[in-house]
């Protein structure tokens, strides 16, 4: 598990300010280019012109963890790669989120069998994962839905999505 002390919150904590900041953070997620295997190609396809992640403000793929606030673990995590993932997660500044993309990152996927010696079955054994996107590889639409649910999680409710706010049924369960 990433050894990370429970960080103290911000020095000045205002509810309204937090809400505004979360709204801004949710709509400008900067993911870190971190493709491990097949899911990386679907991540690139999502960033390309057809599925266009830019509509959600999330396609600014930053190579270095210092400038990114979302780590997408896209692909199979081999045991040799595990310490690197933990290092990258720790080198990301707060606030940071993690998205486990694809079955390999969720639970080892098609390579998890009795006698498997080479892979770590799941990214949540290494870093705290916020959103799981199932699929092998998940279709670009599934990844975009992952981004939307992460944005919902950041803003703690559907106020972000104006249309959904007017649907009476959906708004209640938050």
């Amino acid at each position, binding site marked *: 598990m990433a050894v990370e002390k429970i960080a103290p919150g911000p020095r000045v904590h205002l509810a309204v300010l937090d809400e505004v900041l979360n709204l801004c953070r949710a709509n400008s997620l900067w993911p870190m280019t971190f493709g491990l295997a097949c899911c990386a190609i679907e991540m690139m396809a999502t960033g390309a012109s057809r599925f266009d992640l830019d509509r959600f403000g999330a396609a600014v793929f930053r190579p270095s963890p210092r400038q990114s606030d979302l780590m997408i673990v896209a692909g199979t995590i081999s045991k040799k790669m595990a310490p690197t993932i933990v290092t990258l997660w720790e080198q990301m500044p707060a606030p940071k989120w993690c998205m486990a993309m694809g079955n390999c990152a969720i639970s080892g996927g098609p390579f998890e069998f009795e006698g498997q*010696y*080479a892979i770590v079955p799941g990214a949540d054994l290494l870093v705290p994962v916020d959103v799981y996107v199932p699929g092998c590889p998940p279709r670009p639409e599934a990844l975009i839905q992952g981004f939307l649910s992460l944005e919902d999680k950041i803003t703690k409710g559907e106020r972000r999505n104006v249309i959904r706010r007017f649907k009476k049924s959906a708004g209640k369960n938050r």
Partner: protein
Amino acid sequence: MSSEDLKRALEKIVEPSSVHARDYERNGCLLEIGAEPGQLPAIARAARDAGFFLEFITAVDFADGPVAVYQFNECETISRTQVKVQLAREESLPSIGSVYDAALWYEREVFDLFGIRFDNHPDLRRLLLPEDADFHPLLKEYGKVHAFRSARDIYDDQDA
């Protein structure tokens, strides 16, 4: 530069009894040679002079010891030759990295996954597994496998 003159060259190195042709349609290779570990550098040089390139080096773990499989091929004609070397359990192989540079990684991978050591290999360390791994995964008694047979009952009666 085709496989005939490689066959003649190899027959000088290895005794002719262990050189036998294979049916390309069924098995995909034309010539198969059973060799001793010591003859490998000579075989590699002969293949290099005949203009062959090294397709791969791998090993297959059997009850009476692993069999190292070297495979050479040529670009112009279909002339795939396989060299099989039966090893005892802890025996080591001479490295042919000086003749074929591709062999350096293949040998490191065979050492990594099978534990077969290669003498005078410039940089024999693990290739695929993390450096601190202490097991050789592709050996049959590691982990769960379907069967653990001896070499005779696979190779001997296959062409009968």
